């Protein structure tokens, strides 16, 4: 605790840099949202009343919700498999987790386009079994698959950090006190992983809200999420006012999510332990 002023001094250059390259432009966006095309809160009123924007917001919320749940569940299972695996197996697993993480999101999304496309391998198998083609592209399913694939490593690594710190004697103690493997998981192991799960959920949700490339490519224009909508407003039809209002609101949602998370659990504990 006494070290806090010194830590503050250490991070000061970082804060200044962030302020210059981040907060100043952000403030610019905020300014545009109340000045373009005329000064006032007209843009905000328009946005809140527009049914089209309402639909986009709903789509965004739905996809982000589903994606976050899927990523965290899959990430949890992977992290659990990882901590239970042998050392050699662990190296393999980590490689398979990290390689996609290092690959450009664009490449990964196009790869999914191939896999999920009408003539892709998945549909090949489906058809060879005598079923109709599945529509997995240019719809929400495709977007959810692509985004989940991207976000699972983030969820897994965050949850893993928590799991790795759990003393194995705690699960042994639980067994010794009469709890079978299932009860031990439910009553001891799972509760101890919750801070990590929570941190992973927040991280994945925040990342999902800002997704842009994946929905464009896999959604093929039929699934419009907020990121794409904002970019269309600004880059294609030059409605800077509306675009920056939406950007501001998206930012606000992200901040509120983090703030709510901070209230629910001690974030400092999650990120320092």
């Amino acid at each position, binding site marked *: 605790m006494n070290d806090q002023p010194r830590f503050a001094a250490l991070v000061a250059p970082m804060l200044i840099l962030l302020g210059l390259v981040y907060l100043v432009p952000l403030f610019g966006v905020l300014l545009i949202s109340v000045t373009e095309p005329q000064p006032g809160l007209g843009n905000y009123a328009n946005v809140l009343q527009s049914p089209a924007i309402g639909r986009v917001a709903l789509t965004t919320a739905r996809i982000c919700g589903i994606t976050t749940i899927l990523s965290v569940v899959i990430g949890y299972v992977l992290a659990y498999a990882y901590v239970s695996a042998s050392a050699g197996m662990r190296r393999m697993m980590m490689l398979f987790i990290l390689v996609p993480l290092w690959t450009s999101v664009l490449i990964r999304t196009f790869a999914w386009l191939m896999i999920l496309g009408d003539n892709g391998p998945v549909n090949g198998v489906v058809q060879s079994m005598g079923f109709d083609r599945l529509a997995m592209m240019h719809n929400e399913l495709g977007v959810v698959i692509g985004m989940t694939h991207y976000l699972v490593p983030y969820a897994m690594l965050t949850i893993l950090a928590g799991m790795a710190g759990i003393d194995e004697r705690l699960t042994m103690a639980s*067994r010794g006190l009469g709890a079978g493997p299932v009860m031990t998981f439910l009553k001891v192991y799972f509760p101890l992983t919750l801070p990590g799960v929570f941190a992973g959920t927040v991280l994945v949700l925040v990342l999902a809200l800002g997704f842009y490339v994946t929905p464009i490519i896999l959604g093929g224009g039929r699934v419009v999420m907020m990121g794409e909508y904002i970019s269309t407003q600004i880059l294609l039809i030059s409605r800077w006012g509306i675009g920056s209002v939406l950007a501001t609101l998206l930012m606000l949602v992200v901040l509120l999510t983090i703030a709510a998370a901070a209230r629910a659990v001690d974030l400092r504990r999650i990120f320092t332990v």
Partner: protein
Amino acid sequence: MKAARVEVGGKPVGTPANDRSGSRGVNAPVLLSVRNIVKRYGSAVAVDDICLDVREGELLTMLGPSGSGKTTLLMMLAGFVAPTQGEMLFEGANVAPLPPEKRNFGMVFQGYALFPHLSVFDNVAFPLRIRRQPKEVVREKVLSVLKLVHMEAYAERMPKALSGGQQQRVALARAIVFDPKVLLLDEPLGALDRQLRASLQDELKALHRRLGTTFVCVTHDQEEAMSMSDRVVVMREGRIVQIGEPAAIYSRPQTRFVANFLGESNILHAPVVGSEGGKTVIRIAGCRVPVGGATNAAGEACLSIRPEHVAIEYTAPNGGTDDIALEGHVRDVTFVGADYRVHIETEAGPIIARCRTSEQARIPAPGDQVWARCRASAVWRVISD
């Protein structure tokens, strides 16, 4: 808290009326029987063909140096480590294939392993809730066992907010709350400072007496083993070297290792010159002395003499009697409170004498010519290993 401590210090918690220790001892039935247990890790042998009978109600301590296989043996008893070979009988039934949760043994881990997400109360309630006991029963049992370990005031605390000694008490409460027939303890006092250890040793002993439960304890602290246990199992390199009551092991060690590991010992060598009445006769300082203990081979005998049995004389003792007197001179004197430790260089080798400070008319000084005297009955032959 204060009142509770006084009670513990003042008189034992277990009053004679509920003291079931009477059923303990040599004649108590065997509760847990370890038969030819072996544990190998690859080519390394952690536990090497151990046979051990734990009697009902006793406090048995496994004592040995680091790496002697104590924890491994305890983990096999608890069911966390599967033996490579051998059987384990509990009340006559083989428990070796059972997982830990089916054995119903209480266990106190090294480092306590309290659940950090549960309060003291919930930690102690854990085994009861797992056994689906009704709420009121849980509450009543938890509070009474917390009272037993003097932690009733801390029921709502989280484990993180407890001192080491308090955590140890909670871990103990959690392990006994479901009335297990056997309580296994791995270095229960290992992480505590000396003073706390001493007081908790007494508490542990009192608790054992009061509950009448069988305790199997692991330690590498010989003082702890001797002061708490009904019987001590001395282990070395995966094997048992001696089993017995602490006083018996201390006064009649079978091997040189045991003589040195339990307390301090002077080891001397002397030629064997015969035997009489089941005792070896040795020649030392020109006298023929019959000594008890190992009787194996002729040749050279390895002898153990406890430092407290050695007295210091400043004049040559007039022969006769069955005392042994070794002439020598004092090399060094260390004051250790109640005792002086006197290093004497004698004709038969270096000897340490422990003399009560209060009984010394004259304090020996380095260079003094002295005679180290001890009774022949205090000389004990051990196997040199």
